[in-house]
């Protein structure tokens, strides 16, 4: 069984190799490039599933002896930084999902980027190179056995996210004739925003790592989670708080950035500027789940920090999660962009996972992470298919009417769609399945995972007391479920029902099979995904995931988990809300006409405006952070030009004056007077003296004679 474990590095290296191969060699050949990328990820999928199988077969006690390899990477002074891979059941659970979803999205991208069509994306090969690099990053992150390696892959994904969000901001102005300048600008801004916003979280995470390294001297998970190390961390204090608490909070900061939780959620909706497969791959299914995975992976640290700090850390996680889950969902109600609704839905669902982690239900969180990955990837790819179809419809009418039509047509606007269920049947049916899974209808995957989170919260509330934290978590989750149902009802009503509200929707076509086949596969998983972890009172298959990953942190002696039975009140209530909300939303929106004030706007009034503007968080950040930063930069610039540059120039000018003086002194005194003077004197003396050389022998003889006479005279007289 070690066979597949030993192949684990290849699951990372092969997609990485494909990235390099495409970038360096095969990029001129589009079909070969995408085939390489898909082949690489398919290979990773096979290895990963082999690892999953091997983990399942190795029995219930894999947590006692996980498979790991590590190499000393960087000797630093007396200690050594190790990096390595580790496979335990949590890794295996993620490995089941990550490469597989990646592969489906790769296949879908072939169709979405119009391989072989006249409107094929000009940077087609590069796209596949980037998503291959991303896949390598995500698989690597999951397989990492140390926080250090995890961070490296974490940043790698941050880079890919940046490149792919801004994918349409890089345009070749020499070869492309129709460039949408506004889109270029939006994509550029969105990429920058995502990169900078997540960077805040990354810095916090890195600080946490530094502290961890400073206090324990190791970043390997298996060593950090030893009970004595955790105890040691709980005893030391930093700024009056236990070290474990501080470190856990910092690590959570990283997760907040990556998983788009409340204060740092602003980048995710803007990230929808990237191509839709990217939104599905990175900003819905996998990368944003990395934050949740990070918290689940370092859960013993959170529990230890929480115990040492009076429950503070997990409470923070739960509160942030609950806020995000509820408010994210409410914003989704008022958005018109089909992808932005899904983006806020993603934020909200990630909030569910975080609040599950916060109340101690980490198995439920991982469960929701897995099911969500499938159905949210499905929804995003479905929305991509819809956009693709509508764009083609728009091209068609633009073609027929002999000019470009209305150039500011937005194919993402749900209000211009409508009636697509007849034109795009495969997309429609799979989208409905995804919607039901997200909203949580029985027996779709989302029902089981969301219900487990709510059930855990409810259970803990009954144990914990009337106004304890789990009550609020449960309330936020339940209300969030209702709102989720409402906005999804609105969305499917607007997109698939009613009459087409624009010529583009009227002429929309079903997408090619390369796009719809992944949708169907994902839909299957969205239906049956719940089987992985049915409530514990279901015979035979109940609580499977609990058995599988429930004990993964047992070695730390602080984390325990047990599967819950189905709670009829919770399940019943959330089902009623989900069914009612979805049908209500669908019913009032399916016959919406262009130009009407939409029903929610009519009823909610100013609240709707507030939601439409996303609670003005962006504006707040603009006023509080961005404007002062720009102002500071402006001041610095002025200071730089006014004061620093002036001083620099002054120094230059003074030097020049001194140099000018020196130059004059050199020319006038040294050169003219001394150097030239010596020459002149010598010259004139020589000119005078050479008169004596007449060339006439008689003159010389005369001089000799006279001299002899004079000397003789001197001799005689002295």
């Amino acid at each position, binding site marked *: 069984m070690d066979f597949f474990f030993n192949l684990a590095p290849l699951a990372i290296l092969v997609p990485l190799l494909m990235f390099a191969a495409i970038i360096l060699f095969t990029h001129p050949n589009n079909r070969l490039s995408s085939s390489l990328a898909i082949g690489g990820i398919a290979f990773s999928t096979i290895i990963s599933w082999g690892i999953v199988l091997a983990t399942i077969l190795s029995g219930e006690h894999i947590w006692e002896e996980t498979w790991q390899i590590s190499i000393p990477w960087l000797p630093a002074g007396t200690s050594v930084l190790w990096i390595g891979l580790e496979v335990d059941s949590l890794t295996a659970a993620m490995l089941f999902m990550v490469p597989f979803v990646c592969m489906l999205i790769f296949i879908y991208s072939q169709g979405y980027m119009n391989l072989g069509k006249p409107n094929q994306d000009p940077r087609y090969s590069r796209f596949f190179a980037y998503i291959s690099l991303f896949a390598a990053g995500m698989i690597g992150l999951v397989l990492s056995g140390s926080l250090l390696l995890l961070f490296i892959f974490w940043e790698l994904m941050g880079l890919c996210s940046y490149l792919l969000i801004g994918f349409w901001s890089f345009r070749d102005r020499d070869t492309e004739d129709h460039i949408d300048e506004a889109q270029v600008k939006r994509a550029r801004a969105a990429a920058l925003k995502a990169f900078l916003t997540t960077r805040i979280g990354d810095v916090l995470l890195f600080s946490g790592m530094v502290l961890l390294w400073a206090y324990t001297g190791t970043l390997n998970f298996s060593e950090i989670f030893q009970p004595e190390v955790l105890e040691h961390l709980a005893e030391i204090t930093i700024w009056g708080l236990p070290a474990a608490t501080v470190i856990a909070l910092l690590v959570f900061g990283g997760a907040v950035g990556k998983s788009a939780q409340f204060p740092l959620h602003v980048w995710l909706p803007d990230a929808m500027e990237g191509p839709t497969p990217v939104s599905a791959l990175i900003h819905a299914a996998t990368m944003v789940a990395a934050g949740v995975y990070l918290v689940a992976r370092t859960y013993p640290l959170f529990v230890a920090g929480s115990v040492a700090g009076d429950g503070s850390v997990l409470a923070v996680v739960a509160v942030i999660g609950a806020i995000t889950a509820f408010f994210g969902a409410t914003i989704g109600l008022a958005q018109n962009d089909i992808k932005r609704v899904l983006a806020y839905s993603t934020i909200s669902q990630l909030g569910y996972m975080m609040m599950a982690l916060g109340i101690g239900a980490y198995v439920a969180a991982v469960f929701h992470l897995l099911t969500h990955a499938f159905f949210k990837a499905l929804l995003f790819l479905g929305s991509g298919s819809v956009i693709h179809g509508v764009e083609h419809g728009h091209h068609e009418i633009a073609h027929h009417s002999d000019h470009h039509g209305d150039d500011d047509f937005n194919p993402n606007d749900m209000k211009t769609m409508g009636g697509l269920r007849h034109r795009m049947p495969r997309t429609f049916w799979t989208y409905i399945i995804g919607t039901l899974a997200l909203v949580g209808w029985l027996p779709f995957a989302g029902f089981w995972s969301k219900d487990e989170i709510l059930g855990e919260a409810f259970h803990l509330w009954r144990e914990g007391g009337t106004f304890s934290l789990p009550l609020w978590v449960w309330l936020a989750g339940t209300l969030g479920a209702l709102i989720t149902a409402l906005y999804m009802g609105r969305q499917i009503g607007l997109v698939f029902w009613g009459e087409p509200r624009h010529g583009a929707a009227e002429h929309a076509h079903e997408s090619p099979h390369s796009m719809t086949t992944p949708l169907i596969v994902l839909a299957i998983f969205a239906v049956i995904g719940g089987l992985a972890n049915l409530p514990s009172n279901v015979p035979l298959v109940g609580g499977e995931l609990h058995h599988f990953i429930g004990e993964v942190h047992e070695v730390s002696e602080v984390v325990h988990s047990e599967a819950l039975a189905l709670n009829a009140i919770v399940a019943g209530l959330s089902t009623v809300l989900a069914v009612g909300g979805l049908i209500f939303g669908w019913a009032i929106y399916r016959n919406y006409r262009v130009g009407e004030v939409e029903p929610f706007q009519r009823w909610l009034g100013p609240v709707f405006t507030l939601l439409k503007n996303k609670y003005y968080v962006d504006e707040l950040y603009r006023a509080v952070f961005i404007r002062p930063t720009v102002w500071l930069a402006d001041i610095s610039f002025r200071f730089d030009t006014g004061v620093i540059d002036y001083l620099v120039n002054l120094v230059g000018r003074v030097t020049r004056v001194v140099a000018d003086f020196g130059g004059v002194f050199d020319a006038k005194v040294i050169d003219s007077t001394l150097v030239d003077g010596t020459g002149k004197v010598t010259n004139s003396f020589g000119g005078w003296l*050479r*008169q004596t*050389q*007449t*060339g*006439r*022998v*008689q003159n010389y*003889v*005369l001089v000799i*004679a006279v001299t002899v006479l004079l000397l003789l005279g001197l001799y005689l007289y002295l």
Partner: protein
Amino acid sequence: MIPLYWWLIVAAALFCIGLYAVLSRKNAIAVLMGIELMLNAVNLNLVAFWRYITPQALTGQVFAIFVITVAAAEAAVGLAIFISVYRMHGSINVEKLDTMRW
């Protein structure tokens, strides 16, 4: 016997005449003749001093014979040079021979 200084006066007069010829004549051959006069004045001195002061030793006479020999060689070389100069310049006027001038 006539006193020594008579001889010396004659020799000095001869030397001065020779020197005058060397300094004033334009013809190179005349200049050479002037030099011969000066050499002979010296020879006269040498012989006179030998006869009056050291008649036992032969040094004065030998010296005079050496001078005559050298003068003969000098005249030969000098005349050869003059022929060569004449061929080059067409003249042996020493006032015109100033190519070694600055």
